[in-house]
């Protein structure tokens, strides 16, 4: 096998106040033609830095040592102009977020053609023909029509296919993919993964696939390199890495991945504490615009007093809208919501203190849900003051106890959110919800911004809190493995409607609706002796 990319003893460090931060520390890896090397690690492990360095892109103030040979040329020695020739022509790059990578004011076909114009001597007719060929290659239906569209007229999956087509345009022998499917729906993710496997086999392209998603790599990559703190701790064929990991870190990483096939918590059969019936949300018609179809309609669900109900479905299916209509953040246009038998008003302003206290909401991203200018103590003081009327030293004691509840120290009270890690921030957000002493917590994708090992600890935290306090959780998630570990029942949403609701194990083993089946089919599983996946 001929080696397309060879990274040897690569070190990348940044100048920071008072010294240097080493992002990549003596990393070595090879990728051969027709091979996908998965580079897996948690946030801050340096995996993206390797990807950018291979493209010849170093952040300002960064210095690189060692060697990066792509197609036989040392990237680190190349001039700016030579690098520009290299990028696109011999190394393709697929970014994480195609919405920001594509130019919103240019037709996508023109954007692909731009790459070809820059790097090849093709005439306009040949470029047009090649664009159509590329669009067909990446599996876009009706390529000619889609190429004439602007990025916002395409779905997320189609945008990512365009980004892949741009990377493929000049038939480069090597493509770097930086979290190319993060943020896409599972079924779309599955299609992109199948496309990449086809391109590898059909065009013998070498790929460096950077991700935090180990189960996804297990179904796609040929070999995996595991990164931690800037070092590659282990490299090997996929089967060896997931079945016989040698490094302790790899073992921990695998252990943290929830298993979508282990049985869910047994159903509880409690009387409901929260009930929604006929819930609907319709956004108002704009000026000269017709009333849009309802975002959510006819949703009936109940939540037992210590039950976890998972709400699953793809983006835009109305999961968050449902949760926000329940807590009053969005006004429902029809239907009833009752808590403990008493009706809840549609508008937030019409709910009393008890209504507000009993139902708490934890947001997806703690970076956005914690005020960056307030210390942890100030953030936690708000619910204590608003819901319990306690201030001063007594409030501080309560805040410290709440931090202990979410396994943080009282010393974190004085910190700003920016001085905490992502997992710690989400714990503070959970502590803020707990301080209201609620009976129901609505969790909106609370794990999706976190690394797997952190996710596993937060899941354990939720399980413990639910055991110790009587807590009902409405758990919105796109991660079905997490859903199976946590929830007693599952509700599946599609296009603003509830298509299926039932006990978790029943839904996972005997889905009734074809949409649920397609969601379940898209789950990536880790192969292993003790967890033999069907299929």
């Amino acid at each position, binding site marked *: 096998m001929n080696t397309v990319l060879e990274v040897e003893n690569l070190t990348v460090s940044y100048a920071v106040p008072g010294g240097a931060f080493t992002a990549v520390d003596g990393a070595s890896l090879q990728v051969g033609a027709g091979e996908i090397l998965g580079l897996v690690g948690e946030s801050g492990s340096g995996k993206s830095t390797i990807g950018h360095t291979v493209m010849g892109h170093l*952040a300002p103030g960064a210095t690189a040592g060692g060697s990066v040979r792509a197609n036989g040329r040392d990237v680190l020695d190349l001039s700016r102009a030579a690098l520009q020739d290299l990028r696109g022509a011999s190394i393709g790059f697929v970014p994480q977020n195609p919405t920001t990578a594509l130019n919103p004011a240019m037709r996508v076909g023109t954007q692909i053609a731009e790459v070809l114009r820059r790097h090849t001597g093709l005439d306009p007719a040949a470029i047009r023909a090649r664009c159509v060929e590329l669009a067909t290659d990446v599996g876009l239906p009706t390529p000619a029509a889609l190429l004439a569209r602007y990025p916002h007229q395409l779905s997320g999956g189609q945008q990512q296919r365009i980004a892949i087509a741009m990377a493929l345009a000049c038939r480069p022998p090597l493509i770097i993919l930086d979290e190319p499917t993060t943020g896409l729906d599972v079924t779309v993710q599955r299609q992109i993964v199948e496309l990449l496997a086809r391109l590898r086999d059909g065009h013998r392209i070498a790929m460096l696939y950077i991700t935090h998603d180990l189960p996804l790599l297990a179904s796609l990559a040929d070999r995996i390199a595991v990164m931690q703190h800037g070092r590659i701790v282990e490299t090997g064929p996929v089967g060896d890495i997931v079945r016989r990991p040698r490094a302790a870190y790899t073992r921990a990483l695998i252990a943290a991945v929830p298993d979508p096939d282990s049985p869910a918590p047994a159903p509880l059969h409690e009387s409901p504490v929260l009930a929604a019936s006929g819930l609907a949300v319709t956004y108002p018609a704009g000026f000269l615009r017709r009333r849009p179809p309802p975002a959510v309609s006819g949703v009936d669900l109940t939540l037992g007093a210590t039950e976890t109900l998972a709400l699953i479905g793809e983006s835009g299916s109305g999961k968050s809208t449902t949760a926000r209509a329940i807590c009053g953040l969005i006004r429902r246009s029809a239907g009833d919501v009752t808590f403990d038998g008493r009706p809840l008003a549609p508008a937030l302003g019409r709910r009393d203190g008890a209504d507000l206290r009993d139902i708490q909401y934890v947001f*997806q991203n703690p970076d956005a*849900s914690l*005020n960056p200018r307030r210390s942890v103590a100030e953030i936690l003081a708000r*619910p204590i003051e608003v819901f319990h009327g306690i201030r001063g030293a007594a409030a501080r004691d309560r805040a410290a106890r709440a931090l202990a509840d979410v396994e943080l120290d009282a010393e974190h009270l004085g910190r700003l959110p920016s001085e905490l890690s992502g997992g710690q921030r989400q714990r503070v957000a959970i502590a803020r919800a707990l301080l209201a002493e609620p009976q129901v917590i609505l969790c909106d994708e609370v794990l999706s911004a976190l690394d797997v090992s952190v996710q596993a600890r937060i899941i354990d935290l939720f399980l413990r809190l639910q055991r110790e306090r009587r807590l009902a959780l409405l758990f919105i998630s796109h991660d079905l493995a997490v859903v199976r570990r946590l929830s007693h029942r599952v509700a599946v949403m599609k296009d603003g409607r509830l298509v299926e609701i039932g006990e978790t194990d029943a839904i996972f083993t005997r889905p009734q609706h074809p949409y649920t089946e397609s969601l379940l089919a898209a789950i990536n599983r880790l192969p292993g002796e003790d967890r033999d996946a069907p299929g």
Partner: protein
Amino acid sequence: MMRARYPSALKWGAVLLAVHLLVAVLGPFLAPWAQDQMMAGLPIQGASLTHPFGTDQMGRDIFSRTLAGGWIVITLSVGGTLVGVIAGAAIGLFSGTVGGWIDEVLMRLTEAFLAIPFLIFALLIVSLAGPGVQGSPVLLILVVGAGYLPRVARMARAAALDVVSRDFVLAARLRGENAWTIARGEVLPNATGVLLVEFAVRAGYAPIVIGTLGFLGFGLKPPTPEWGLMMSEYRNLLTVQPMAVFGPGLMLATLVIGLNLFTEGLSAMARHGRAERAA
């Protein structure tokens, strides 16, 4: 490794401001004559060693009067800008946070005020205030503040709109907090940067407003040694001894230039800081 990272505009602005502040504080003590002493020299004398800017119609030393004017102009400028920024920020942040028809009404009102040119607006207030309070420093501070209020309110509202859609504001709404509490507790701490720049920019133009009103006779009353008023009083002496007008004018000009250089340097530094954080 320590690099010099202060923009030169900031440095020169700081130097000019420091000189002005020194003059404002020490000027009255360093002045060779008391600013209101009549017949400190013969009336209407040209520049000399004893009277660097000459003397006026009543024999007062113009140099001493110019030195004494510094703290008046600076106090009025800072006071007026403070009133405008605080009131404007309160209205703008509240308006942006509360949204809906209240926001609409408040913003249409600010637009109505913005449609009146600042100077005409100021003259209007002064003449409406009546002769009893005309010439009072408090009135002047309120005029500058009222003039700045709608301008600051719009900036503060824009800053608030940037913040109110973030999840921590939704979290506050879920606690049942009202718009005023949210504006103060959640939005204001995230808008302080904008408001500080706004304060600096507005303060940079306040001396011109005060000087202009003084020159037109709508500002402080004689015999206050306010620079605009002095330039107005002495414009008849321009041919005899130009320093009587140029002296106060130069002080006013350097103060405004210093303030503006300083502001420009500050915002350049803020931009640089943002770029650095983004990298």
